[in-house]
């Protein structure tokens, strides 16, 4: 039997079960119930096809291992977890939170082409397909990304890969107020970060384009090694247009906002987000009920 079939057997079909990767985002969506049996997804890069721009990888593979394989062909998957040595592909997809380059490279869900998962009934189920364009049937792939393992346990996935940018430069400059143009007049920057006092910008692309864009920023800007330390106390998600208003009540340095995206990293804890509208909560409940009628998958997580 293959690794996926073994995983399906291990997950079984009866008792409550939770899947654990690198546990780097183990608290997201609420704690899993205690005394639940813990399983781990299989690991390993199965097949990288640079000329098709995709890679088949088992969910338990660490991001560092995957990145190493892709790097040899000059490619990448812009998932960018904070701790690539521990974070697993399955964990990143299940939590669904992108790294700092989301502004240019898009959310996690847009990098996933196929997911093979173990259902609550212990069956292997396939969603999507290993091609870059596909509208054959309903989009279960996007439903599963960010579902915290509460609809199915990810076993193996196919991700889109991309050529590594030829050049990348981080720059920083002073910015006591949020700029009128949130993206500073830059063409598709990879990241624009603001802490209430300074801005950091990541430019990626052809070397001389990157240089020209850096020049455009002006003399107050300086080259820097990378982004600032990202605060890990809490994480907020807001419409990008709301960041300016929100920041009025928060001191510089107490947060780091991803401009144009709307993710705000806080040094202190984040207030609990407002509950979904009743009609949306009802839809979420119905989805969960159809995919996991007994509630055995990752019980406790995914408060919707």
């Amino acid at each position, binding site marked *: 039997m293959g690794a996926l079939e073994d995983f399906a057997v291990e997950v079984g079909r009866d008792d409550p079960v939770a899947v654990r990767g690198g546990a780097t985002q183990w608290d997201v969506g609420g704690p899993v119930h205690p005394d639940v049996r813990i399983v781990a997804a299989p690991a390993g890069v199965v097949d990288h096809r640079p000329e*098709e721009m995709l890679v088949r990888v088992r969910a338990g593979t660490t991001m560092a291992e995957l990145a190493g394989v892709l790097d040899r062909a000059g490619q990448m998957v812009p998932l960018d977890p904070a701790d690539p040595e521990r974070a697993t592909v399955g964990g990143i997809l299940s939590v669904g939170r992108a790294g700092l380059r989301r502004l240019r490279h898009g959310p996690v869900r847009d990098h996933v082409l196929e997911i093979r998962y173990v259902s609550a009934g212990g069956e292997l189920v396939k969603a999507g397909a290993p091609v870059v364009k596909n509208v054959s049937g309903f989009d279960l792939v996007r439903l599963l990304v960010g579902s915290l393992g509460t609809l199915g346990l990810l076993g193996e996935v196919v991700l889109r890969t991309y050529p590594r940018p030829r050049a990348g430069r981080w720059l920083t400059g002073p910015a006591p107020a949020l700029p009128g143009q949130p993206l500073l007049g830059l063409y598709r920057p990879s990241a624009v970060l603001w802490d209430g006092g300074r801005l950091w910008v990541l430019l990626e692309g052809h070397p001389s384009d990157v240089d020209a864009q850096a020049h455009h920023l002006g003399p107050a800007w300086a080259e820097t090694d990378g982004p600032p330390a990202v605060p890990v106390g809490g994480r907020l998600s807001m419409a990008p247009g709301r960041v300016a208003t929100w920041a009025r009540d928060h001191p510089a340095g107490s947060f780091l906002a991803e401009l144009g995206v709307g993710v705000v990293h806080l040094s202190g804890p984040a207030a609990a987000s407002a509950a979904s509208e009743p009609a949306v909560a009802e839809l979420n409940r119905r989805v969960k009920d159809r995919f996991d009628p007994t509630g055995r998958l990752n019980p406790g997580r995914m408060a919707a």
Partner: protein
Amino acid sequence: MTLVSELVAALDEERVRSGGLERALYNRDASIMEGRAGVVCFPLTTPEVQAVVKVAAAHGRAVVPRGAGTGLAGGAVPVGAEGHEPVVVVTTRMNRVLEVDAHNAVAWVQPGVLNLDLSRHVAPLGLHFAPDPSSQQACSIGGNVANNSGGPHCLAYGVTTAHVLAMDVVLADGVLVRLGGLEPEGLGYDLRGAFVGSEGTMGVAVAVAVRLTPLPPALRTLLIGFPTVEAAAETVTAVIGAGIIPAAMEMMDARITKAVEEYVHAGFPADAAAVLLIEVDGLEDGVAAAAAEVIELAQARGATSVRMAADAAERDLLWKGRKSAFGAVARIAPDYYLHDTVVPRTRLAEILARVYELADANGVAVMNVFHAGDGNLHPLFLFDRRRPGELDRVKAAGDQLIRVCIEAGGVLSGEHGIGLEKRDYMPLLFSPADLLAQDSLRDAFDPSRLFNPDKVIPSGSRCGDLQSVPPGVWI
């Protein structure tokens, strides 16, 4: 009260059509399938859509949402036995751009806004809506959402789902919900992602928040002729292999190139076995370097002609050639059947050879114009439905085409969707467990099965009996 009188009470007489001739206009979409519309409604507002859905549900009638009717897979074809024909809800009159936020590159639009109208509307702000289906002059955003539409420029920018942030949707019980949001990480499941591409089976989108994309500061549009289809296909692979992702990379074979040239007179190389229309965009230096590299890769594979658009007018002309392909074909044959499958792009040359073979074997003329960069094939079979047996041969060729593509590791559809056309092919791609999971998603959205019944998922997925075309549909 009768169904019609209740609908008239909810809307008005002018916007509820129940006459035979008027209904017949809505029996079809742009596919070759035909069903039967019960009553056709043209709501203007969200409360009107809610009212229509509630009336239909109360009368046990299905609801078929419909945009501009440009779909090619029968997704908007109303299916129902006599006396139970669906209520067709046409959203084309809900055609206002509600709000544009240029700073944050977001617009709220009604579903009936046409794709190209939206891009034109926001062009003065330096923005556009990136998905650009070939039907973009006629197709609506609501239809794009339902079909997760693509287009040539989706190679670099992604298909519709990557450009939809949120939607207001009317569900089967008439309740209005907002799926997704402008914030990047919402609570709960990605119901937005689940809804996009659901082909009208889960609800009606009544407002859509779309992400707008900046117009590129620089671009190059190249038209390159090749002595063989293989050389063109190898160039596609080589470009991707070199780490270049063009904004678009389209292929046209000799037959369609000749037809287009005779129609548009755009100076397409009529002697080439295949042409590639490649566009690279972004910032100036990267674009210049990428264009030079593409030309080099093409010439190394024997390109016989290279033409770079000198200005916007020439670029528009080259794209007009590409996008007029279907009009050009209409001059050659009275009918055509446009297919849509995806194969791994490294196998394009081999699969194209198979396409010509199977067309020949069935005695059907075929032309190819497609999104080569995505491996998204669009073979176009020509026929004349007045000649007995021709449509049957076209259908046989299409059946073989689908099987060839699936065997090559491809999928049933890259853009057009499943609808009725490919519903019964779904088991070629998915196991019963896979199909049950997809059906479960639909069931969560619409437990009453009010919306667009008999589409996408084969009816045997739950009970084991697979029937082909549902009753009340003609092909």
